[in-house]
């Protein structure tokens, strides 16, 4: 139970968790007992709420036809799988639904990506240090399974008086980027990075965007296949400068192991 495993982190951050499906109270009770679920599993039998909220997955039939399967009667009434993020007033601030039919984020990934909280629980991490910058990389989960989206977070701690570049950037300078070596079936999403701050050097026309102090960037990695344990080769590129001079561009290599999880776990 991935969400159950992360529940303490949600509670520590004062976030309520609810899961809704069309299962009966009996089904959910048995499931809850088996996996020791401590958050509410709400039983929307007959999919009344799912329909009222406009979340009924009408694509399911079409989807199964697309893959050559068929839909059993008891599979009708399912919602689009995904999550709503509510603020303190109960207002929807984000919708986390996936384009890809079954891709799912991890609970820790949502905690960090949607709520902006820092989880104390995550996958293995690797650190490296070069040119006054300490780089720490970690995955939000030590395991992955088919159609799951993990977040690769890279945190840079930049020594005082130094900065690294963001984008846009004038020609000839290297911005902060990260790459992950190819893994069969792994799709790399767009880099999530905070807004850099403008930086100008007296006497130069060029406008720079920089990061100072501590900066955290993340890369969504969607695993469409779960074939084998992997070691992700992460390359973090950046160029360190002070107000007066720049070092050569750096490329730090880090390795993060992630093991495959083939047994089915639900609900997310």
């Amino acid at each position: 139970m991935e969400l159950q495993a992360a529940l303490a982190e949600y509670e520590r951050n004062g976030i309520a968790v609810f899961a809704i499906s069309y299962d009966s109270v009996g089904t959910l009770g048995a499931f809850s007992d088996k996996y020791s679920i401590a958050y509410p599993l709400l039983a929307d039998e007959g999919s009344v709420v799912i329909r009222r909220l406009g979340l009924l997955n009408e694509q399911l039939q079409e989807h199964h036809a697309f893959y050559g399967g068929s839909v059993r009667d008891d599979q009708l009434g399912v919602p689009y799988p995904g999550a709503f993020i509510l603020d303190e007033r109960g207002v929807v601030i984000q919708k986390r639904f996936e384009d890809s039919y079954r891709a799912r984020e991890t609970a820790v990934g949502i905690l960090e990506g949607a709520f902006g909280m820092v989880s104390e629980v995550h996958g293995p991490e690797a650190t490296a240090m070069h040119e006054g910058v300490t780089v720490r990389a970690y995955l939000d989960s030590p395991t992955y399974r088919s159609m799951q989206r993990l977040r690769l977070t890279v945190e840079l701690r930049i020594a005082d008086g130094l900065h690294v570049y963001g984008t846009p950037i004038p020609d000839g300078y290297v911005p902060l980027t990260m790459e992950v070596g190819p893994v069969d079936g792994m799709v790399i999403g767009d880099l999530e990075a905070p807004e850099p701050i403008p930086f100008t050097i007296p006497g130069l026309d060029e406008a720079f965007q920089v990061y100072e102090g501590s900066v955290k960037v993340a890369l969504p990695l969607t695993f469409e296949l779960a074939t084998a344990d992997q070691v992700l080769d992460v390359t973090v590129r950046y160029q360190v400068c002070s107000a007066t001079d720049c070092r050569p561009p750096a490329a730090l290599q880090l390795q993060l192991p992630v093991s495959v999880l083939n047994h089915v776990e639900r609900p997310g």
Partner: protein
Amino acid sequence: MPTPQPFPSTDFMAIGPPVGVRFPDVVLPDQHGTLVDLHATRGTRPALVVFYRSARW
């Protein structure tokens, strides 16, 4: 496990309660049969509301 193929995509921002609006009132029984009022239970806490296919399949 078949290799995933491109499937007609859905505009998920158009599905379900919109961003910027209070999430609708939901009162449903939990796994113990106790009625749960989502907003009342949430109180003043932010919340994660997950919709999933089923605990059975």
